[in-house]
């Protein structure tokens, strides 16, 4: 066994789960079964808006194999992120096509489906509100007439009518900036559709009810959220819910919420048998919790020299619009709007991807208006050491500037692929991106075993990103001077591990890494202390290396870590260490930001992406000729793993940029109901991404790390959209850039996007009032 180099934690540690995944032996949630297990199916609404007159399950209960049926009366609670506005089952009204009406558990899935179809539902259809523009029209029907009575779970957001939530930022005097005589005002509008995660493993759960407690085995990124939300919806104490997580077959944010677990839990209690609920691909397409559709208007006051004096932006669902650049004054509004469509949710770099698209395209429009080279403009304006971010946080370190230089070197070093464009239109763009890792609470426990191995216990989940099989064992092993293969990582179990916010936002390696490192340090101190006594040396003079405690500078002088642990077993007892972490946060200027779920920037992460495209003037097909990435990773613990995340994230971003979109039909149903019409990138649609990892930027992460899996998806839509605009000379305002959309742009068939429901007067768009 190769022993770790004690001088560095960096290594290409192979994935310990790769072998069984390749052998087909890994058991994901969908592969599990229990004796007497029932199968569940959900009855869903097939209209977007209706009043429920009657639900009769009498017939369905008599169907063969049926063991339990659940509906609204079984789960009176509501859940949500900022406000508890989601019922588990439709009650009184139907609010979207696909909404859950009832759940059935039966001996087979087919029986459960048949019984669900046999439930009689009498509805009085209501006219649906399908777009944000409609929902914001004065006098529009209220999707949630009782919005005022809902429980507020997070204080600070403004609300009203069909505006579910409003967050805002006001810093400095944009009125004065826009009134200056030396500025040019540039206004841009953007719209993006919904992106489906298409995790290959659908949402899936097996729930059982034993000894008065629910055991939920589920495919999730957030075991603690599932525990707490399920308890809330079922009206039982959280301690009655136990969540464990098998290997997860892809998440990308879709599993960052509690969704189907409570249905299985209720049915398990009612039937007294374990219940399996797995969403079909069609259910996954129609009720996915997509990356949200968004509409964005940005106005900037920019001097001819390229100084951004003021910026005002309104995004219907958004936040990262304030990133990338130093801006003299700023007003941002983000509004989440209720409509009669399926709810959206979290998706890898949520809100960051389309806001970066909007911001970078707007930046290019600004450059065009003032006649400045886009790269020069970016070099001039990217956030540097000591600059103020949108909400007044101070940025530390010069990162984006040197990253732009690094990209310039990459561009110089590899010849342009322009010749591959042939007779097609050629375009290129370099864009920047800023993501903010929110860290939040994590905890870890380490049992140091008498054989010298360590067992790491956390509520972290392995979705494929590698944190649990690479980064965490590497960090713990580094602290303890053992090989990462001797770090056992326990799968998430809320009965064994303490609270964790979940896997998302790029936080896992940072937060769980910091907690694990602290736990390892705790264990390490105990070992050094005991070994110091045994070796009659002060602990400061001891080092842990290759599974041994050694007196520094004297190889072979000490003893094995296992011997120390065995000694402690006899004297003070087994060796256990723990560590916890939460975000110290960099606060915003008081009174500046309101209603943001994450109001402190913990770790900024930067991206520079460059791409070359060829656009077919006959068909509108966009072909990506080259793609380059410089990514700020803080410190790369496992470069090979990070390169894999970047190739995968860029590909997902290419899909979102060029093809992936859910649109809503007139009936309120999502039109792309299968992988035939929802087109994800296939092998021929990708290309090898050229990547450089930028190390050394400041980070509060353990050993200087930053999350690396979230951010690669941030910039492809921006890079591709800017390159397509450059190739075609057309104003790109929407993604995805499907062949019909691009050809429509070139032919002048695509109308200019104007977003009249977003007022040019920023204050007219918000509930917030000037201080």
């Amino acid at each position: 066994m190769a022993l770790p180099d004690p001088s560095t934690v960096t290594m290409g540690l192979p994935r310990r789960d790769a072998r069984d995944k390749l052998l087909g032996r890994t058991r994901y949630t969908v592969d599990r079964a229990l004796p007497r297990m029932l199968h569940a199916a959900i009855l869903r609404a097939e209209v977007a808006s209706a009043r429920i007159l009657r639900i009769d399950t009498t017939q369905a209960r008599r169907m063969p194999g049926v063991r339990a049926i659940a509906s609204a009366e079984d789960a009176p609670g509501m859940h949500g992120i900022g406000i508890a506005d989601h019922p588990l089952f439709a009650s009184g009204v139907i609010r979207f096509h696909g909404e859950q009406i009832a759940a059935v558990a039966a001996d087979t899935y087919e029986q459960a489906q048949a019984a669900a179809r046999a439930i009689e539902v009498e509805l009085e259809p209501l006219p649906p509100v399908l777009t944000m523009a409609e929902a914001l029209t004065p006098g529009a029907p209220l999707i949630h007439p009782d919005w005022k009575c809902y429980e507020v779970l997070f204080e600070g957001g403004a609300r009203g009518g069909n505006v579910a939530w409003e967050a805002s930022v006001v810093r400095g005097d944009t009125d004065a900036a826009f009134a200056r005589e030396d500025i040019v005002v540039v206004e841009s509008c953007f719209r993006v559709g919904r992106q489906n995660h298409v995790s290959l493993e659908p949402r899936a759960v097996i729930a059982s009810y034993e000894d008065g407690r629910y055991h939920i085995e589920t495919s999730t990124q957030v075991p603690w959220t599932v525990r707490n939300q399920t308890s809330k919806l079922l009206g039982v104490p959280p301690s009655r819910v136990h969540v464990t997580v098998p290997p997860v077959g892809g998440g990308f944010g879709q599993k960052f919420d509690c969704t189907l677990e409570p249905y299985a839990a209720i049915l398990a209690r009612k039937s007294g048998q374990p219940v399996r609920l797995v969403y079909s691909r069609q259910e996954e397409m129609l009720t996915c919790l997509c990356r949200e559709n968004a509409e964005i208007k940005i106005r900037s006051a920019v001097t001819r020299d390229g100084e951004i004096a003021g910026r005002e932006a309104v995004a219907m669902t958004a936040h990262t619009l304030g990133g990338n650049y130093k801006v003299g004054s700023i007003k941002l509004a983000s509004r989440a709007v209720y409509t009669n469509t399926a709810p959206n949710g979290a998706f890898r770099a949520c809100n960051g991807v389309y806001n970066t698209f909007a911001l970078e395209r707007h930046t290019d429009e600004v450059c065009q208006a003032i006649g400045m080279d886009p790269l020069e403009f970016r070099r001039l304006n990217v956030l540097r050491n000591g600059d103020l971010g949108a909400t007044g946080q101070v940025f530390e370190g010069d990162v984006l500037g040197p990253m732009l230089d690094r990209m310039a070197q990459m561009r110089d070093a590899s010849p342009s692929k322009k010749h591959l464009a042939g007779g097609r239109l050629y375009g290129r763009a370099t864009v920047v991106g800023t993501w903010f890792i929110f860290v939040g609470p994590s905890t870890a426990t380490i049992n140091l075993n008498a054989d010298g191995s360590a067992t790491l216990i956390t509520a972290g989940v392995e979705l494929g990103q590698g944190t649990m099989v690479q980064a965490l064992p590497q960090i713990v092993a580094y602290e303890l001077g053992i090989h990462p293969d001797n770090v056992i990582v326990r799968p998430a179990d809320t009965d064994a591990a303490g609270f964790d916010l979940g896997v998302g936002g790029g936080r896992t390696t940072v937060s769980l890494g910091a907690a694990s490192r602290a736990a390892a340090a705790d264990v390490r101190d105990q070992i050094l202390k005991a070994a110091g006594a045994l070796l009659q040396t002060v602990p400061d003079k001891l080092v842990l290396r290759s599974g041994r405690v050694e007196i520094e500078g004297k190889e072979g002088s000490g003893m094995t870590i296992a011997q120390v642990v065995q000694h402690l077993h006899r004297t003070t007892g087994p060796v256990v260490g723990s560590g916890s972490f939460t975000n110290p946060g960099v606060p915003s200027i008081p009174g500046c930001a309101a209603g943001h779920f994450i109001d402190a920037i913990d770790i900024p992460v930067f991206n520079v992406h460059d791409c070359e495209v060829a656009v077919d003037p006959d068909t509108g097909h966009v072909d990506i000729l080259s793609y380059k990435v410089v990514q700020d990773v803080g410190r790369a613990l496992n470069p090979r793993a990070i390169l894999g995340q970047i190739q995968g994230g860029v590909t997902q971003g290419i899909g979102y940029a060029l093809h992936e979109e859910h649109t809503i039909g007139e009936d309120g149903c999502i039109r792309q109901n299968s992988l035939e019409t929802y087109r994800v990138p296939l092998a021929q649609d990708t290309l090898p991404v050229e990547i450089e990892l930028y190390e050394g930027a400041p980070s509060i992460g353990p050993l200087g790390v930053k999350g690396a899996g979230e951010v690669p998806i941030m910039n492809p839509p921006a890079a591709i959209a800017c390159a397509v605009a450059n190739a075609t000379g057309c104003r790109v305002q929407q993604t995805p850039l499907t062949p019909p959309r691009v050809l429509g742009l070139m032919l002048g068939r695509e109308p200019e996007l104007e977003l009249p429901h977003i007022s040019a007067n920023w204050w007219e768009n918000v509930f917030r009032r000037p201080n």
Partner: protein
Amino acid sequence: MRAPDDENLFIAGTVPDALAALASHGVGAMPFAGGTWIMRAPIRREPQAAFYVSLDRIPELSAVDIAIDRIRIGACVTHSRLAAQLAEVEPCHGLVTAAGSAANPAIRGMATVGGNLSTWDFPAADLPPALLCLDAEVELATTDGRQRLPFERFLATRRELRPGTLLTGVTIPRRPVRTAHARLPLRKAGDYPVAIVSLAILLDRNGAVEDASVAVGSVESTARRWPELERKLVGHPLDPETARVLAEAELGAFTGRDGVEAPGWYRLQVLPALMRRAVDAALRSQS
């Protein structure tokens, strides 16, 4: 072979076997030939037939017979076998492109010629436009006997075929034509084409077009020929750019269908470019 009575699938060994099974189960019975759409019906919440008669073990239906003057393709030949067996056979360049690039490799390995042609609600199918250009004939069998139908007639009437009718094969006359099949998926591959131009061109000794067959698929609900353009092509040298210009002038012949993946105008708009690509490919192919 299986006893059909208590089950919903009968594995037929001969065509008469299959016809008898279809007849005895009446309107609820359907042939199963590849089954790529039948088997996906549950996830799409579409109905399945009460009874299926599987044709894949009937030797006659799985044969490709290549004679000097004609080619006969059994109804249960899959897309991938069709592409492999006719790869170097003239005048099948266009048909091979159609069969070899439809859907994805897995589907091509299962989906059959007969199944594809019998699926009347599949506007983006690749085989119909390719076969339309080749003056193909379709063989139909019933318990009363067999008949041949020109491909165009078959497309027009396939929805109204008598229950119990079996498509047994397709026959293609071997003419000295150059053929090509230009299809436009939205990704590089893997999705159904939003528009297709197939053609078969007979050139005279001087390189001028003596006879032209052009068919368009996926633009309307069913593939059909483009006679307005065919007439314009005759008598002139074959040239991709000229063909594109001529196609542009005759777009009025079609009404593009709106679909989830592409609007109707787009399907029309790309036809001239597809015509150019098809002519280019035809000129490169052997005659």
